[in-house]
């Protein structure tokens, strides 16, 4: 098992694996998102309180969940790179970061668009939105740090440390923001209280959740392939893979 796993420390092997996995994830993810979204928009029943505005949940919740999971995945990759000195692990980490950042952005934006009709204002310093915003900052920090380095190998390691610092911090940030929010109760309305959601409403949500997860995985894998090529561009295997096939 270990041996099987550790062969992907080699960029060539990881590149091949990414190719295979991308094919498995990409089309199913699109299919699931299509089914989940159409079901959610057209067939799922209205919420008795929020009317049709609640349909935003079908993208808000999956993107919010994925934004957190992607950060954790990034930190795990950084840890693997740190402990076993795998170059490919840092490449994976860097590939995930922008995808996670986009998910965070989507979660924030859909949260705001949902908030406007519900709260009457686009932005409210609600605990969840605030922690999402800080999460976005953490993502941007990792991406900015990596891109500031000329030597990407060094940049990967530095960004990895930052990702780990962030992942230790996320629970603390989350907790502190909740505390802060309950303290300043006057300003907030706890909007997202969980009513027992009907199964007809739940199914499309679960489908979209899976679809988004596969989408994040597929795009990250695609970006990781790019990253491998970018970093290994001088190596003979890249040359034989890309240039000799053409002849």
């Amino acid at each position: 098992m270990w041996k099987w796993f550790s062969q992907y420390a080699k960029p060539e092997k990881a590149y091949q694996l990414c190719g295979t996995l991308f094919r498995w994830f990409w089309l199913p993810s699109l299919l699931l998102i299509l089914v989940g979204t159409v079901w959610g928009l057209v067939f799922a029943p209205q919420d008795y309180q929020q009317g049709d505005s609640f349909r935003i949940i079908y993208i808000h919740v999956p993107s919010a969940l994925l934004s957190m999971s992607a950060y954790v995945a990034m930190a795990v990759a950084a840890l693997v790179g740190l402990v076993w000195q795998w170059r490919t692990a840092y490449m994976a980490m860097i590939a995930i970061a922008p995808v996670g950042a986009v998910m965070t952005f989507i979660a924030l934006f859909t949260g705001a668009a949902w908030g406007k009709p519900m709260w009457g204002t686009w932005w409210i310093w609600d605990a969840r939105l605030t922690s999402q915003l800080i999460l976005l900052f953490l993502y941007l920090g990792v991406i900015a740090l990596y891109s500031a380095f000329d030597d990407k190998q060094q940049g990967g390691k530095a960004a990895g440390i930052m990702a780990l610092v962030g992942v230790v911090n996320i629970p603390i940030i989350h907790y502190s923001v909740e505390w802060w929010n309950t303290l300043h109760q006057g300003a907030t309305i706890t909007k997202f209280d969980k009513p027992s959601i009907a199964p007809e409403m739940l199914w499309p949500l679960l489908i979209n959740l899976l679809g988004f997860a596969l989408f994040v995985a597929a795009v990250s894998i695609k970006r990781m392939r790019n990253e491998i090529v970018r970093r290994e561009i001088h190596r003979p295997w890249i040359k034989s893979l890309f240039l000799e096939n053409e002849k």
Partner: protein
Amino acid sequence: MQFDSLSAFLEMGGYGFFVWLAFGVTLGAMILLVVQSSLDTKHLEKEIKDTHARKARMRAAAKEGL
């Protein structure tokens, strides 16, 4: 089917603007992400050609210098 007509569907019970804005921006962001990643792949393919051509030139120059 929750909606009687297409216009009712587009209206989303009065919340149409917000619902479609949220879905639209989400779709846009995801498409941008995918397009950017694909363009990157294309760009890299060109870069590979350039890099190896450059190396060939450098090798030739080094040989001449000897």
